[in-house]
């Protein structure tokens, strides 16, 4: 599928670059996304996410490299193929003075939808983003989260093969954010290819089948969440709080397969383990022999740490 780049890929990006004056915003990005796959571009501010997306969406001409959508070349001069693309831009691209439904009617009309079909699609996407009851209100009266959701709805009207979402949850309350993530999951479940940019690690982890970590205009590493974490060799941590013989417990735990290190911490112990869920039962059994456990907690290394490892920077600045 995605990884081996067969012709079923919805989008194929081959080594695109783009500079603005002296600034190289994108310094060679390649990626492929298969139908039903959600690909995350995870990177900090200014990493080149939006510039990459603008090139994939045919809004910006790459300095070099190619983009193909559904096997056809994509670029500012390729108008027709854009009907296969749904773009949800980072900035809210809506008419604030028009009603929610009027905005959708406009963007639907641009996709050659009309009449009954347009009405049905508008109703459907309003339902998807949970705005059916606010469709008659002007967008300027919407909350930030509602605007974001309408912004997404406008990209869904024509059932695109590839949906691009550029930081769709920025400045959104937790409830709206969850609604947005759920609808993305649902769309991907229907077979839509999704390209999702974010600098929220949790979103990338939750949504994305594969993740590209982008910094300074380059994809620094790419793979599933587990592959990426494996890349940096980070271990899971099992923390156990309890009372009893900590030294004996430490010795016992060091015998458990998978456990690489045991350290005392506060009123308990922390074990560094290769794959904590697999070994958890054995760990707890070994510890329980010497300790009265009050709490057990697993922390798995996250993309934040991967990012730090790859770039020497924090993901969020």
């Amino acid at each position: 599928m995605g990884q081996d780049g067969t012709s079923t890929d919805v989008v194929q990006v081959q080594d695109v670059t783009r500079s603005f004056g002296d600034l190289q915003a994108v310094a060679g990005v390649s990626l492929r996304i298969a139908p039903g796959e959600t690909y995350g571009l995870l990177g900090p501010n200014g990493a080149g996410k939006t510039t990459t997306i603008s090139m994939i969406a045919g809004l910006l001409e790459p300095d070099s490299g190619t983009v193909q959508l559904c096997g056809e070349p994509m670029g500012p001069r390729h108008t027709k193929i854009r009907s296969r693309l749904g773009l949800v831009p980072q900035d809210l691209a809506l008419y604030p003075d028009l009603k929610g439904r009027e905005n959708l009617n406009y963007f639907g009309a641009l996709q050659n939808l009309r009449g009954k079909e347009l009405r049905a699609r508008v109703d459907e996407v309003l339902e998807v983003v949970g705005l059916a009851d606010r469709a008659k209100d002007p967008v300027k009266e919407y909350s930030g989260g509602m605007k974001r959701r309408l912004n997404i709805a406008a990209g869904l009207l024509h059932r695109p093969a590839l949906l691009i979402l550029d930081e769709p949850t920025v400045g959104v309350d937790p409830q709206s954010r969850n609604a947005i993530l759920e609808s993305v999951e649902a769309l991907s479940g229907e077979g839509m290819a999704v390209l999702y940019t974010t600098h929220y690690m949790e979103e990338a982890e939750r949504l994305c089948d594969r993740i590209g970590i982008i910094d300074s205009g380059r994809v620094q590493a790419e793979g599933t969440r587990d592959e990426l974490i494996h890349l940096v060799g980070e271990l899971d941590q099992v923390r156990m709080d309890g009372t009893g013989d900590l030294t004996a417990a430490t010795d016992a735990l060091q015998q458990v397969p998978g456990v690489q290190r045991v350290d005392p911490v506060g009123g308990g112990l922390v074990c560094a383990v290769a794959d904590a869920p697999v070994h958890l039962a054995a760990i707890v059994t070994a510890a329980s022999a010497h300790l009265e456990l009050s709490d057990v907690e697993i922390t798995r290394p996250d993309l934040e740490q991967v990012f730090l490892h790859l770039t020497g920077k924090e993901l969020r600045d």
Partner: protein
Amino acid sequence: MRAAWAVALVELRRFLRDRSNIFFTFVFPLMLVVVIGAQFGGGAGSGRVVLTDESSTLGQRIAAELDARDVTVDVGEAGQARETLARGRADAAVFIDDAAAAAFDAGDPVQLDLVLASTSGSSAVAQQVQSAVAELDREQAGVAALVQSGVDPDLAQDAWWDGEGQVPPARVDVVDVDDVSQAFAGVTGFDVGASSQVLLFVFLTALAGSATLIDARRHRVIARTLAAPVSAGSVVAGQALGRWVIAFFQGTYVMAGTSLLFGVQWGNVALCLLVVAVFSTVAAGAAMAIGAVLDNEGAASGLGVGLALVLAALGGCMVPQELFPSSLQFVASLTPHGWGYRAFAEIQRHGGTLVDIAGSLAVLAGFAAAVLALGSLLLRRSIARAL
């Protein structure tokens, strides 16, 4: 093409959504027609003129002629007259110095200075004064002719006055000696005001609408539009079309409104609509250019309104072109309004046909092509810039 329609339609919808646009489009033009119509309307019983001398024959004769035209005459010395004008207590002042008075007595050509106040009625009063002076001119020529054929000068004057007594003095609206009154023959003040307002408001409304284009660029809707299967050309065409429809609608609205409310005679309506259509294209192009170049709605509205007013004034939509000195008439011909005004004048006042207005229309079409091309180019550029 369908995409262009969608773009045009959404621009229209947004225009109508703005309440202030509704006022400025539907109510304000008709209000102005009333004001301007009153300025040029009727003429009887209106106006106040200061003469700087009433003791000379010339002064007395002008006073009498103005009086016969229901213009109120005051007398004051030059300084006083200027102050009265400045305070807006009179519409115009006629400066009669001793040299002029003596020249008149001697039957020589006389040059008089006419100064207008910035009152609403001053243009109409200017016509009255010109017509009064023209009447004196006619008289002087007549007397001179009599004297030349051997009549005693005093007798000649008396003979002229006797003849005068039997013929009422000419009124502005029927006088035929003077270019200005000839130009306005057969029209009411409303007619003049209305066609000027069509031109003024077509531009004003279109340019004020440039703010919605900036808004669309700012909100990145244009960029998003281009992510749909829509070419940049369609977006530009849609923007132009939307603006044209707004401008054309404004023009036809003022035409219809003034015709129904004030009985304005438009002459050949189809020709008028043709003028409005071509003129609207100029306005749409100008609006696009402003909306593409400026990034701030406030600045665009300000520039739009300012430009619309200045062009209208220069083109003869505030003070009729016919009252312009020739140098300003040339300036008028540099504005689309100047040509629109001439086309309307031809249609409304002289029953002009397509052939008669072909020249003006051709110039307007030239303006339209140039401005529209410029607007499209700038918008295309700004689209590239916005990405």
